[in-house]
Each structure stands twice: as C-alpha cells, then as structure tokens.
C-alpha cells in the first residue's frame, strides 16, 4: 500500500542518512554543491551559538541556538523541492505538504522560575506546545492541522496525536507571526498545548538528527541526555519561519531555529559548589566547530564580572548586546578560530562565583493557582505582577481552559490595587462539551508597581467512563496561561537589521526602540475531577447476580422440586450375587 503521508520516505532512516550526506559534503567542501547546481546556487547557511548565563542563585543557564537558513524559491505553491542541503528533508516536506507558513513547537520539562532566574531568551510552557500559521490558500485548516500533528508525533517521538479539536484554540491576538507577513486572519492560526507531555531522550534523539552536523561536531557534542535531563529546566524547541535575508528584503529564506534551554541546579547537578565548567555541565568539552557552520560562537555573560563571577580562560573578545531590555556584556569564544582551543585542542570554560548579589527584578511576572474546596466548584486565580517603578503598560492574557472545567464568565473579575480594572479588549469563545475548549483573551492595562488578579469561577464536569485516563486520580492538567506584553525598556533597543547580530538577540523582531517583547507562561494547573469508582460495574454485577441467583433460585426450587424415595445402594457382595442370579435367571436379592 502506498505511502500514507504521500512522501517518498518520511521514516527515521532518512534522518540518519542525512548526517552521512553532511559528512560527504564536509570532505569535498562546499564546492561540490555549487558545481552541481546551475547559476542560482542555493546557499544554505548554518550558525550555531551557545550562551551561558550564570545566575545569582548559583544555578547556571545555558541556551543553545542552531539556525539553518534555507535559501529556496519561496512560497512557490505546487513546486516540489527536491534538493536539500543543510535544511532537514523531513521538515521541508512537512512545510510544503501542509502549506505551513510558521511552525513553533517546544518540549519542556520543568517550569521556568522567573523570579529566581530572570527572563529566558526563548520562553516555553511545561509540556509540549505547538502553534502553526498556515498559508491563506489552505481550504481545510483543521484537516491539515490534524495530519500535521500526526506527522510531527512520528518525527519527534511524542504523543502529539493527542492534539485534536478539544484542546486546540485560535487565539486572535496573542500569537502574531514572528516571521514575515502581516497576517491578521486568525482562522489560519492554530495553537495547542499538552501540559502532560514528557520530554526524554527519545525526543532529543530525533531533534539532534535535524542538525546538519548531527551530534558529531560543533556545539551539539555537548548535548548528552544524561546530563541534560538531570536539570531543573530543560526545553527544546523548533521554530520555522520565513525571514528576510537582507535589509531591503529582496530575497527571502526559510529560517529553522533549533533552541535548547537548560538550567542546571546548584544542588542536584552542581553538588553544592558554586563553580561551573563545561565539563561539569555537559560531561564534554568543545573540540571543534561544526565544519558546515559559517559561525560557531560561545557567549558567556560577564556583566557581573568581576564582582560576582570569574571566568577562565579570559578572552579579549567582548561583545555588547541589548537583550531583554538590558545592556549585557559577553565574552565571545569563536570556535571557527583554532586559537580558541589553545594548546590542549579543547575548550573548557570555568566559572567561579566570588560573591553574592541581587538579581535585577524582572518587570513582568505571572502566577496561577486554583482556589476552592471540594470536587464540584473552584476558582482559577491568575496573578500578574508589574514591577516597573513608574511605567504602566498593557498585557495580553490568554487562557485556554478545557471544556470539563465549565467557566462561569459572569464571575470574571479583574482587580488591580483592590480596584476594578476593566480590560479594553476581550475575546471570549465559550467551550462546547467534547468539541472545543474555552478561549479567553484580554488586554489588561497594568498600573505601575502593582499586582493584578484575574479570577473566574468554574464547575467540574463529570466525564464519561471511557474519557478518564488510566490514572485519573493523578488529576487533569490545564495548560499554562500566556501573558504577552511589550515591556518598556530601560535601554534603547536596536531596531536595525544586521546580519552579524548574535542569535539570542535576534529571535524576536524588534519593532520599537523603547520596548521589547516578552512572553511569560504561568504554571499549569492540576485539578481533580470527580472520579468514579471503576470497580463498581464489577461489584454491581456480582451483587445482582448473587441476589437473583439466591432469590429466584430458591423460588424456582420451591415450585418445581419433587421428592422421590430412593433405594439405598446394595453392598458389593450382594451386587455380585445379583449379577450371577441375573445370568442364571433366578430372582434378585434386595
């Protein structure tokens, strides 16, 4: 039978085969591909980067970004692309088959603690999150969405096939495209999250295979699962979007960013010592850059150096970048230059803490919890903090609640500083039992230095027997709320487009000088639904059958039983004597 998805082979051997193609290219150099392709040579580009940010609590935050630019005839519908160089074929085929314009998928284990760690470079909610912008030429977006989730579940070995219409929403304002294009029709956007999804080596393995060098060279050699999953926070994501290749946007390309954020804990992975090195974090050191990369750099945040941290080996190469509204200084280690590796031909960075310090308070922070008692009703509280001393700014809060928590929207209250705060924009889509979840989006103006609380009451529904998970007493998850905002920046942000910008500062396009975009995810909720006793059908059947058997059986016996006299059986000697008497034809004994 034919290929179910219509590809030649979208199986895992393809991905493994790709890395050998990369090795072939490495041996011959880039000249081979240029010789093969005629005049307009496709120039794929690959950049890799690692940012290490020491945190004040003694933990350390490492953020990997791998960016592949796929230079291809853009947005040509119906044109089959068959030449893939650095861009992975499995994702390229997904983009063309499902007419995807933007794809963002993330797998996260753990929760990002904004108050202790600051703002992450790439935020992500616990579990799996997938949001996709389709082209406006797509006629059946839901059908494409369903097939796309199934294909991605095969590529990433995750149970993304559980994403269906009961947990998919179409946010109207929270998830604008991060790439090119000014789409406003949110009918082509789909957003879903699976808070229960586990991340483990089986998700990391295919993720690593999407890289041009695999996990054999460059920064990806550091990605060892035994160390990465022994951390407080682990998030790996794939972001695909169309971008401009230059200032005037004369040529466009697909950009694939693979990001991996990990926070190593001081006590579990660090054994309590406030001293970190690459070897301690990843059990590996760097020996070479990926030969297919045009740039391969390690940035270490030394803004608080030398009062708080000490970095060795020291390097004269410094770079300043304004990221997340703050001007930070970074030490740059360029892996494409041989002198970075020194005499030992390996690079191992050592960071030692020298003192304690106070972290800059993040300007935007959110929390969420369930209040109430019992298994019938409850209340969801979302608390958003604005820590800016004098500036107020608006935030967009998006809540997607499953249908089995029936929200009573007339009880929705938004209070700031104990006064009612009316949102200027509300988009609410009520849930439909077993079809659609609730979607609530609100634009709330946060007063300076304040706490805003959003509360809504709900009632828990009783599910049908087959809708319960095999472990219903664990509870049911409600996905994180998303708070998106343009936060006023202390430092002027750079709106110019430069090719040489480090990847971590160019993830989100900066449109204004005075503010930067921030997305904060709250905790997911775990609520208990009224759970029936699953052994009751068995108990009921046993009891009913016993009652029927005893009651009806006795009655039947009383009505139909007859008594007859039974002759006692003869002993053996008399029976043998009777046998002989029967043969002789003589009357029998009794």
């Amino acid at each position, binding site marked *: 039978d034919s*290929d*179910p*998805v219509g590809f030649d*082979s*979208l*199986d*895992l*051997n393809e991905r493994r085969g790709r890395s050998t193609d990369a090795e072939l290219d490495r041996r011959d150099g880039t000249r081979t591909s240029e010789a093969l392709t005629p005049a307009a040579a496709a120039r794929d580009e690959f950049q890799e980067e690692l940012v290490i940010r020491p945190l004040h609590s003694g933990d350390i935050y490492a953020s990997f970004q791998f960016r592949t630019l796929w230079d291809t005839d853009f947005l040509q519908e119906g044109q089959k692309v068959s030449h893939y160089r650095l861009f992975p074929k499995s994702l390229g085929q997904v983009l063309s088959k499902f007419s995807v314009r933007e794809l963002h998928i993330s797998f996260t*284990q753990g929760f990002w603690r904004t108050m202790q760690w600051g703002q992450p470079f790439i935020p992500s909610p616990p579990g799996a999150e997938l949001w996709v912008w389709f082209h406006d030429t797509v006629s059946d977006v839901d059908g494409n969405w*369903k*097939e796309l989730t*199934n*294909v991605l*579940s*095969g*590529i990433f*070995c*995750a*149970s993304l*096939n*559980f994403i269906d219409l009961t947990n998919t929403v179409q946010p109207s304002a929270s998830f604008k495209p991060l790439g090119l294009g000014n789409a406003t029709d949110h009918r082509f956007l789909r957003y879903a999250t699976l808070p*229960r999804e*586990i*991340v*483990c*080596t*089986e998700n990391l*393995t*295919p993720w690593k295979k999407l890289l041009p060098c695999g996990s054999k060279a460059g920064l990806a050699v550091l990605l*060892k*699962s*035994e160390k*990465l*999953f*022994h951390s407080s926070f682990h998030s790996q994501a794939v972001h695909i979007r169309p971008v401009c290749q230059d200032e005037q946007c004369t040529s466009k390309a697909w950009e694939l960013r693979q990001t991996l954020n990990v926070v190593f804990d001081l006590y579990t992975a660090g054994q309590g010592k406030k001293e970190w090195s690459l070897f301690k974090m990843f059990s590996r050191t760097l020996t070479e850059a990926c030969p297919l990369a045009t740039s391969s750099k390690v940035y270490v945040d030394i803004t608080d150096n030398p009062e708080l941290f000490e970095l060795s080996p020291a390097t004269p190469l410094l770079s300043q970048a304004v990221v997340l509204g703050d001007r930070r200084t970074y030490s740059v280690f360029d892996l494409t230059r041989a002198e970075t590796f020194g005499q030992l031909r390996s690079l191992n960075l050592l960071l030692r803490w020298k003192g304690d310090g106070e972290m800059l308070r993040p300007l935007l922070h959110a929390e969420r919890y369930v209040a109430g008692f019992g298994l019938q009703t409850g209340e969801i509280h979302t608390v958003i903090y604005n820590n800016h001393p004098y500036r107020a700014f608006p935030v967009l809060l998006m809540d997607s609640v499953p249908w089995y928590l029936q929200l009573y929207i007339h009880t929705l209250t938004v209070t700031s500083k104990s006064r009612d705060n009316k949102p200027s924009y509300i988009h609410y889509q009520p849930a439909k039992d077993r079809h659609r979840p609730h979607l609530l989006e609100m634009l709330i103006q946060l007063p300076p230095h304040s706490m805003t609380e959003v509360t809504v009451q709900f009632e828990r529904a009783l599910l049908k027997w087959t809708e319960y*998970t*095999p*472990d219903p007493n664990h509870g049911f998850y409600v996905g994180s709320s998303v708070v998106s905002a343009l936060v006023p920046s202390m430092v002027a942000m750079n709106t110019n487009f430069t090719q040489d910008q480090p990847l971590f500062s160019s993830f989100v396009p900066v449109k204004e000088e005075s503010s930067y975009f921030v997305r904060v995810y709250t905790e997911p909720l775990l609520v208990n639904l009224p759970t029936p006793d*699953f052994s009751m059908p068995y108990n009921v059947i046993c009891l009913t059958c016993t009652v029927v058997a005893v009651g009806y059986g006795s009655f039947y016996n009383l009505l139909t039983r007859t008594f007859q006299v039974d002759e006692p059986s003869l002993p053996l000697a008399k029976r043998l004597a009777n046998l002989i008497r029967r043969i002789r034809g003589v009357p029998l004994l009794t």
Partner: protein
Amino acid sequence: MDYYNLLTTCAFIHLLVSIPYAYSNYVENKAGQFFSSGHTNNWAVLVCTSRFWFNYRHVANTLSVYRSVKRLGIPDSHIVLMLADDMACNYRNPKPATVFSHKNMELNVYGDDVEVDYRGYEVTVENFLRVLTGRLPPSTPRSKRLLSDDRSNILIYLTGHGGNGFLKFQDSEEISNMELADAFEQMWQKRRYNELLFIIDTCQGASMYERFYSPNLMALASSQVGEDSLSHQPDLAIGVHLMDKYTFYLLEFLEEVHPASQANMNDLFKVCPQSQCVSTPGHRTDLFQRNPGSVLITDFFGSVLLHDMKQLVADVSSQKPKQKDWHPPDGFILGLWTLILLVFFQTYGIKHLKHIF
C-alpha cells in the same frame, strides 16, 4: 527356497539402496532448509503494558529486548516500541535518562539513541491490535506502523501484569488470549508475516498462547498457568526491582549471541530453567512448520544478512552430517523388519504363518 532367496535379495538390495539415497537426501534437506526459512526482512513489536513507577522492571524488560534486537541488526524503522510509562525521565528516578537492568547500575538499557513509537496513554489494547493488523488511521506516521509483508519474520514481546487468559494494559483494560489469537489469524490471512515468534513475560504467561490457531507461530512464556513470574533483583539506590527473572536470563543469553551466531531455538527454550526462574518457562511449537532446532535465533532477533551465493552452496555441500541430529535413512526400519521375518520363516518354516495371522 527360491522364494526365500528372492525375498532375501530384495531386502538386501533395499538396504543397499537406502543408505546412499539417505545421504544425498540429507544434503538436499540442508539446502532446502536454508532456503525454506524464506524471510527477507525482520520486524519487532516490543510492548510494555504497565504504568507507574513500581513497574520499572517491565520497562527495563522491554528495553533490554529492544537493545538486543538493535544490536543484532534490526533498525529503528523496523521496530515498534511501545512503553506505557516513562521511567527514564520520571521524577522519581535518581539517575535521569537512564533505565538500568543490572543492579549497581551496571548496564543502562535506555542508552542515547532510543526511539519510542508509542508512549504513555497511547499504549492501549486498540492501538496494539491496530498495529498488528495494520488497520491504522491514514494519518499515522510510518514509524508507528508495522509495515510487514508475507516474507517478514516478526518478533513480538509482551510484558506486564497478566493472569489466566489475559494481559492487563495500564491498569485499566485487558487483552484476552482469544483476541490475540484472532489478531494473529488476521495477520496470517492478510499475509502480514512469514513466521512469528511470540514471547511473553507475565504471570501465567502460557495461557496467552493456548488459543493460537494460525500457522507458523512459535511462542515462549515465562511461566505456566497457575504460576507467577517473579522479579529478579532490587536496586537499593533506585528503590525498585530492576528486571524480571525470565527476561534477565534471556538478556544474558542474548548478550552472547552475535549476528553470525548459529544458536537455535532449542537453546532459547532452555533459557531460565526452573532452578533459576522459580516458575517453569513454557513454549509452543506445534503450529510452527520448521523444526525448532533448525531455526536460528538471528532469524527473529537479528536482521537478514545478504550472503554470497557461491559461498552458500560451497558451505552446504562441504558440510559433514552432524552427529547430534542423525536420523536413520529412509526405509531402514522396513528393511530391517523384512530381514527379521525372512530369517524367522527360513528357520521355522512357513507353516507357522497361520498362527500369526
């Protein structure tokens, strides 16, 4: 006396002819057996059906078979691995991203290159039966399908908690032995396998293969009906039992097997006798057409390797008949009895015939 002479010479000629005929028959049989194994690709469906941290050993069982099967050559694209719960990245695992099979953390069967096709809530009876019979929704990706054909040898390994005639999936549903037998019959009728090896490591595992009725099935179980399969050894650092006894000794046996090994199914039947396993492992070969002694372990656990044809013919013809599997040549018994009768009648005369018949 002429009559007797004729009979004697007939018996003698019979014997003379049967010996060389038997030898060439043997060589032909050997070549025929090699070609008659008839499979061109190998698949494996490995299922762990238990949820919760204290069932760590079932996941470790499945992963050890996965590891052996990958080591012997079956690629990930031909393995459908179903794990009902995540033990490696479970928050209760003191060593994340690892699943150990031997205590003191000697062997990490999870490894660095694992691909789990069905995980968590996806491991249900319905999904398992759909994978076997191939009746999956059209949008299912290839890595989740069993794309076997009529020349595939399939290994199916199940582990979990079971009882007499059923296997429990995730503490909420069961698969019965009749359903399994019917699924295999569907596979046979749709020509989805050439030969199938079914291994089950649960309590009362032998009850699961009692109802099989399709041809070319061989089954092994870790315990008989009425017996419990026991777990092997706990690890005090992790806090749970790491493996079940039967699969532990199966893993130790498979670690000795390499892709060119000539070990056969009779060796597999001897894995974990009652002295080691406490339960009595059972097996069923009546539905299998070939002799288990001629079935190689690598026919199911490994991948088909291409052979050079000339070398193959030279191998077969140069082999001397083996001592241990010797059968007397055809017609030998008949010739022997003819000789005995002839001698008897020659000595005692033909008149005694009427007393015998």
